[in-house]
């Protein structure tokens, strides 16, 4: 991987110098006029779109690339997630894929010259029932076979790792054991997004914020497979070829469009005449006031639909499972906070006096098997990197790397072949629900 050279490097010396002189840092990425054509147009400036742009430039020398976003960098799920990173998934395909992302996170601070605050603090997935414990054993064995540090531990070890958890047998949902994954942890999501944006910009990629894609121009298609006349238009759909995109700032000619719009993925795909196995649900999260650091690991409870970690500033960050109906509305609900508080207190009764500061939501592109949809589609030149659901932040680096290779070589890399769109028609699902429904 090539390192970035151009803009002011972030360094301790630079920090001290600017601390004394008051000189400000240059902007991390620049604004541009829209060109009339690009080699590659990426829709969505979240971690997936930005990472793909960066690796196209860094690994393959393709720099005539535009990343378009209707809002701002990281305004989607990439700036709203709870930043949990891990690779203890359930299927061999999933484990191999997410583990490559952990490798990239490990060297990211140096590669992108930005402090991403990667903290491998350990990750506990609690089991409160025999069934859950069985799934943990299964996951541990799949993980070990792939060389992942992952094992099942009992209540005493859990208590030693995380004393604030109530591990006594007298609770409503006693903790019977946990899947322990020491390399799992958290990362600063904004720094990752900004790091990729800044590094891609330095290599010549253009990032266009406030630029909404309103249509995709496709020639020679069979009219789309929606059949209701609402999508597509005559030339779109399977068999067609992408020739450009329409945006709120003008039309762009391009042979390659990458859909990296997560919660909005179905809408973008419909513009090309492609239907996806995706339903958009909001996922909510909440954060407390800061207190002294007392929670050393990430704690997830699938049975109680809750997970928690503590930031370096001391706030507790909570999440749960997605809202139970499809919507593009990102409003928070009282149902969520009420249920969350009840369940968190089952695990950690000691924090009952803490106050919630904020809650928010982001849109998640849920697939039937809790695995992503990556690679080529029946429309030539239209690629997808979507279906990231509630678990896609951690996959940003590996997805960017693999999608860049896919675009540059025109062939699907081995690591992402299991996640192709045609697996649904073929009935080859990659079931990750047991490892991804609550533990994001």
């Amino acid at each position, binding site marked *: 991987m090539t390192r970035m050279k151009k803009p002011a490097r972030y360094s301790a010396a630079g920090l001290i110098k600017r601390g004394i002189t008051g000189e400000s840092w240059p902007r991390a990425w620049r604004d541009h006029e829209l060109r009339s054509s690009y080699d590659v147009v990426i829709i969505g400036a979240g971690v997936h779109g930005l990472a793909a742009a960066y690796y196209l430039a860094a690994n393959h020398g393709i720099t005539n690339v535009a990343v378009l976003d209707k809002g701002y960098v990281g305004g989607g799920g990439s700036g709203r997630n709870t930043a949990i990173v891990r690779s203890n998934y359930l299927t061999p395909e999933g484990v191999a894929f997410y583990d490559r992302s952990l490798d990239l996170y490990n060297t990211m601070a140096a590669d992108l010259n930005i402090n991403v605050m990667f903290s491998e603090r350990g990750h506990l997935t609690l089991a409160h029932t025999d069934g859950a414990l069985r799934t943990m054993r299964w996951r541990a064995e799949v993980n070990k076979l792939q060389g992942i540090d992952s094992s099942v531990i009992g209540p005493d070890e859990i208590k030693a790792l995380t004393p604030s958890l109530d591990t006594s047998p007298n609770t409503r949902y006693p903790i019977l054991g946990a899947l322990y994954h020491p390399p799992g942890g958290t990362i600063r999501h904004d720094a990752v997004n900004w790091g990729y944006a800044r590094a891609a910009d330095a290599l010549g990629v253009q990032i266009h914020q406030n630029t909404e894609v309103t249509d995709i121009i496709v020639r020679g298609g069979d009219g789309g*497979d*929606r059949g209701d006349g*609402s*999508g597509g238009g005559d030339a779109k759909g399977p068999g067609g070829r992408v020739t450009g995109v329409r945006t709120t700032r003008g039309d762009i000619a391009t042979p390659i469009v990458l859909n990296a719009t997560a919660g*909005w993925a*179905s*809408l973008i795909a*419909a513009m090309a005449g492609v*239907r*996806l*196995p*995706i*339903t*958009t649900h909001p996922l909510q999260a909440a954060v407390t006031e800061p207190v002294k650091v007392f929670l050393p690991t990430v704690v997830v409870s699938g049975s109680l639909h809750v997970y928690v970690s503590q930031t370096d500033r001391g706030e507790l960050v909570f999440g749960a499972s997605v809202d*139970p*109906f*499809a*919507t*593009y*509305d990102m409003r928070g*609900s*009282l*149902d969520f906070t009420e249920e969350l508080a009840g369940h968190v207190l089952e695990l950690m009764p000691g924090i009952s006096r803490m106050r919630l500061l904020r809650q928010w939501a982001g849109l998640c592109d849920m697939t*039937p098997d809790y695995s992503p949809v990556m690679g080529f589609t029946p429309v030539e030149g239209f690629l997808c990197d979507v279906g990231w659901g509630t678990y896609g932040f951690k996959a940003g680096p590996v997805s960017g790397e693999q999608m860049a290779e896919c675009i540059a070589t025109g062939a699907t890399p081995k690591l992402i072949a299991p996640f192709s769109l045609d697996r*649904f*028609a*073929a*009935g080859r699902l990659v079931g990750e629900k047991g490892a991804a429904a609550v533990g994001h």
Partner: protein
Amino acid sequence: MLLVPCPHCGPRNAADLRYVGETTARPDPTAVEPEAWRGYLYLRDNPAGRLTEMWYCRSGCRRYFTLERDTVTNEFDNSPLPFPKGSRS
């Protein structure tokens, strides 16, 4: 919170119901190719706007019914359709 207008019980909190999801036309199981059947199972329009969707009133009347809702504003159409064409209810 979402108030769902159950045609039998009146408005109820969405938590009282189970969301079944977007209704899609069910192909004839005796005539369909596996690929088209899987398309019916998995592919969705997932529109931002008007959606015809099915709900199950699990802690009320325990019936399935379809409603129309705008997925951007979350407003329901006032006239629930109990059993639309093409969906299995």
